[in-house]
């Protein structure tokens, strides 16, 4: 199947939002307008790329934008510039055609062009199919390899931490 991978524009945001809604579950705080502002204004907080198919391969719901990846630039205090892949998604009916791999390859190209030395991302431990794919591409599991745990502090806990509330 023919497809193109390209940098996303503001017009693509509604399709990126559509695919984010399908691929995730739980409570959300970001509306489409927020995504437009955060990703497509003068100083964006993220970058995105789109996988698009020609008209004759549109999905049964009429979509030609069938996959996306969302990334941003990060920094390693050991090695310098890095790129973090936050989201990688292909609509189910378009999987198995190399689109996911092509999206990731594009991020690798854009990261290298920006002077990055590494690409980081997170995978859920039950997602064996994805883990096997990434391992086959030369990635390694930092959590297992270095015993690193991803931590998060948010909401009231973040505000309490900022105030320096006394703790037990």
């Amino acid at each position, binding site marked *: 199947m023919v497809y193109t991978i390209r940098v996303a524009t503001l017009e693509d945001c509604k399709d990126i939002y559509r695919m*984010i809604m399908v691929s*995730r579950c739980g409570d959300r*705080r*970001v509306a489409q307008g927020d995504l437009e502002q*955060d990703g497509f204004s003068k100083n964006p*907080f*993220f970058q995105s790329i789109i996988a698009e198919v020609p008209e004759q391969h549109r999905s049964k719901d009429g979509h030609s934008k069938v996959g996306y990846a*969302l990334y941003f*630039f*990060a*920094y*390693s*205090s*050991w*090695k*310098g*510039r890095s790129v*973090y892949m*936050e*989201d990688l998604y292909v609509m189910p009916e378009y999987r198995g055609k190399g689109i996911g791999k092509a999206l*990731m*390859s594009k991020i*690798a190209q854009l990261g*290298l062009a920006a002077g990055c*030395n*590494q*690409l*980081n*991302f*997170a*995978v*859920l*431990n*039950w997602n064996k199919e994805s883990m096997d794919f*990434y391992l086959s*591409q*030369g*990635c*390694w*599991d*930092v959590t297992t390899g*270095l*015993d*690193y*745990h*991803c*931590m*998060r*502090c*948010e*909401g*009231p*806990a*973040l505000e*309490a*931490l*900022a*105030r320096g*509330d006394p*703790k037990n």
Partner: protein
Amino acid sequence: MANFILRKAEPRDVPDILRLIKELAKFEEMEEQVVLTETELLQDGFGEQPFYHCIMAEVPEDRRSSDGHTVVGFAMYYFTYDPWIGKMLYLEDFYVMKEYRGMAVHTQYIHSTAVKSRCSGMHFIVAEWNKPSIDFYKRRGASDLSHEEGWRLFEIDKEYLLKMSAK
């Protein structure tokens, strides 16, 4: 007189930033992994589009360290994005020289930065064996995403990035 001040890093701080990065890496027994140079730190942190931000902790002259330093701690951070939650702050490094620990305000500065920048949360990595740090953050409401949700951090190094980008 205050024990220390906290301030935004300036280009002149780059040698101290690298010194403290190496000290922290040594504590983690990973000193040989630090390949970053002062030139890269200068370019990447103080150019038109910085890749990172730093806050420095500095003591007065009369409280210089035994080896003559007044810059005794730092925190390195940058902004990230979760399309479900929004803007986040990622704390890359956070370190205070041993003889100056216990002052605690350093932590508040970072967390205030996250709140003032309208970040929805803060992410960071802690090594499993670093129980004091894990306990410190858990007491303050942090969640261990690796443990609770099964997230594993993956990395692809440059050699494989080049192969991947050529495909």
